[in-house]
């Protein structure tokens, strides 16, 4: 094991039910050297995402991983939450014990920058909430764009949106931040709806997963609130939006996609927050800045998730 190079990783998140599963997976994968977790306002307010992130890390047995608070609102637009999916507490209204880990005082953008410097160009950033923290880190620390190896984003869509007809929820929560991140020069992997809506865990699979152990049972229970919402919107199961982004750096063979130019619309009326890609258009952008994932081997993904969670 000692000669296997671990991947230094940073997770920026807004837990969030599927963020919780993403964290559980990440913290059970020894090849990841998790340098830190930062919380951002998104699915629910920052006070809740921060507490949730702390409590989840402790619940998953990793009080040692520092958790930082970031932005409590988007750069410009009004905050937008998603209680209808994630419940009042952000975790499907399932309570967790409070973490007694020390409360980190450094703001998320400074902590991320310090970790990137320490990792000397190897840090992989996985961002699964609105991109406010990441944008602020890039704005404050000019060299961060040269220090990150890759940014794996859960967000966007090369076709249709789920927050509006044109925009996906994470990007729609902070389009200006997303625009900054897509232009930052770091290679981006976009885990958008094109792929994540194919990464659906069926209710039966979710139930089977819940039998594994208390950790998996918690994730199953937390997902129930959102499941009803998904089913009302034609998705029979839990789309593993955030978990796919966390698994990508280690299991890229499960996914397929195409290099594309991606720009974020920040001035449109009905397209505000749309990730415009040139994948299918005759007209191409003069740049390629992202690998847009379009498909996933669903069966293998579900197996992999079960296998990783069974380690708890």
């Amino acid at each position: 094991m000692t000669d296997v190079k671990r991947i230094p990783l940073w997770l920026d998140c807004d837990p969030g039910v599927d963020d919780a599963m993403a964290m559980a997976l990440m913290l059970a994968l020894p090849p990841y050297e998790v340098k830190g977790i930062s919380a951002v306002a998104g699915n629910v307010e920052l006070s809740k995402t921060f507490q949730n992130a702390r409590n989840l890390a402790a619940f998953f047995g990793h009080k040692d991983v520092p958790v930082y608070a970031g932005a409590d609102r988007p750069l410009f637009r009004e905050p937008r939450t998603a209680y209808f999916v994630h419940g009042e507490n952000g975790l499907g209204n399932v309570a967790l014990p409070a973490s007694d880990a020390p409360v980190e005082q450094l703001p998320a953008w400074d902590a991320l920058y310090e970790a990137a410097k320490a990792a000397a160009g190897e840090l992989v950033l996985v961002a699964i909430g609105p991109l406010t923290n990441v944008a602020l880190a890039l704005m404050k620390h000019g060299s961060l764009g040269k220090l990150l190896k890759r940014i794996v984003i859960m967000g966007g869509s090369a076709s249709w949106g789920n927050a509006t007809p044109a925009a996906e929820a994470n990007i729609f929560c902070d389009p200006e931040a997303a625009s900054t991140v897509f232009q930052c020069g770091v290679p981006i992997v976009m885990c958008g709806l094109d792929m994540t809506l194919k990464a659906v865990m069926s209710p039966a699979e979710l139930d089977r997963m819940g039998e594994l152990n208390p950790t998996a049972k918690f994730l199953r229970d937390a997902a129930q609130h959102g499941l009803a919402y998904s089913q009302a919107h034609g998705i029979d199961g839990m789309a593993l939006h955030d978990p796919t982004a966390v698994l990508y750096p280690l299991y890229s063979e499960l996914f397929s996609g195409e290099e594309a130019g991606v720009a974020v619309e920040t001035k449109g009326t009905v397209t505000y927050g749309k990730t415009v890609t040139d994948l299918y258009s005759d007209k191409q952008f003069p740049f390629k800045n992202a690998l847009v994932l379009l498909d996933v081997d669903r069966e293998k993904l579900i197996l992999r998730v079960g296998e990783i969670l069974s380690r708890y």
Partner: protein
Amino acid sequence: MEQAKKTIPVILDGDPGHDDAIAWVLAKASPRLDIRACTSVCGNQTIEKTTYNALRICTLIGNHAPFGVGRPRPLVAQPIIAPTVHGKSGLDGPDLPEPDFEPCGLDAPALMAKVIEESDEPVTLVPTGPLTNVAALLLTRPDLKAKIDRISLMGGGIAYGNWTPAAEFNILVDPEAAKIVFESGIPITMAGLDVTEKALVFPEDFNRIRAVGNKVAQVVADWLEFFYGFHRSLGYPGAPVHDAVAVAALIKPELMTTRDLFVQVETAGDFCKGTTVGDWYGVTGQAPNATCILDIDRQGFVDLLVEAVKAYD
């Protein structure tokens, strides 16, 4: 059986353009369609050129329905033309007969209004260019909406564009007009890029059309050759005859796979001006306003074109 079906009174409104031209050839050949008027709009080329081209096409196919000329520019936006696709004349390629008739003297929206007003039954509009004329009609004569049965248009794309990554040419040229049309409440059939880039006519099909032998068949084959030149350079295996899909959808709807969607038009934005946004996941809760064509029986479409040119024997 075809003859037993009721005929549909139509107004053809286009910016010819090779694919507009083929759309009109298809329309004139069909006993299902009764062409009540033709109108020109600026788009692929200036209004002078699209008007001249339209009159020559009508002359070629023996269509002398009243002709109305459109305005020289979009409602609000600056004009955009597409000489890279259609050539300097807007309809480069084969020689065409000079026009053997004159425009009727009414501007395009006024002619549309007159035809609709005088018709006993509701009229279907078939716009295959920017929606400038149709929007001008709807803005100035909202009382006639109830007498417009349907608007079967070529434009937009519910997932992507062609002239910009997000916007299709016809909608991009006059986004404000498109917004008016999509918000009009009139039933819309949208032949967008989702289907029209699948409505491919391959080089071997050109030969099939040419082999029909008559003058129109020769010209259509030449138009296809020219139109394919641009698309071949982009990697297309054939010529996407966009505009003909809006006509084919009326003549032979069974060739089409459709989905009813709520579609909005973006008129602002850095990257999305002219984008038609389809509510694929139903997040707005709004009722659909457009029947979006998503796929086509390509072979059936080509067969329809071949049959159409045979009508000119």
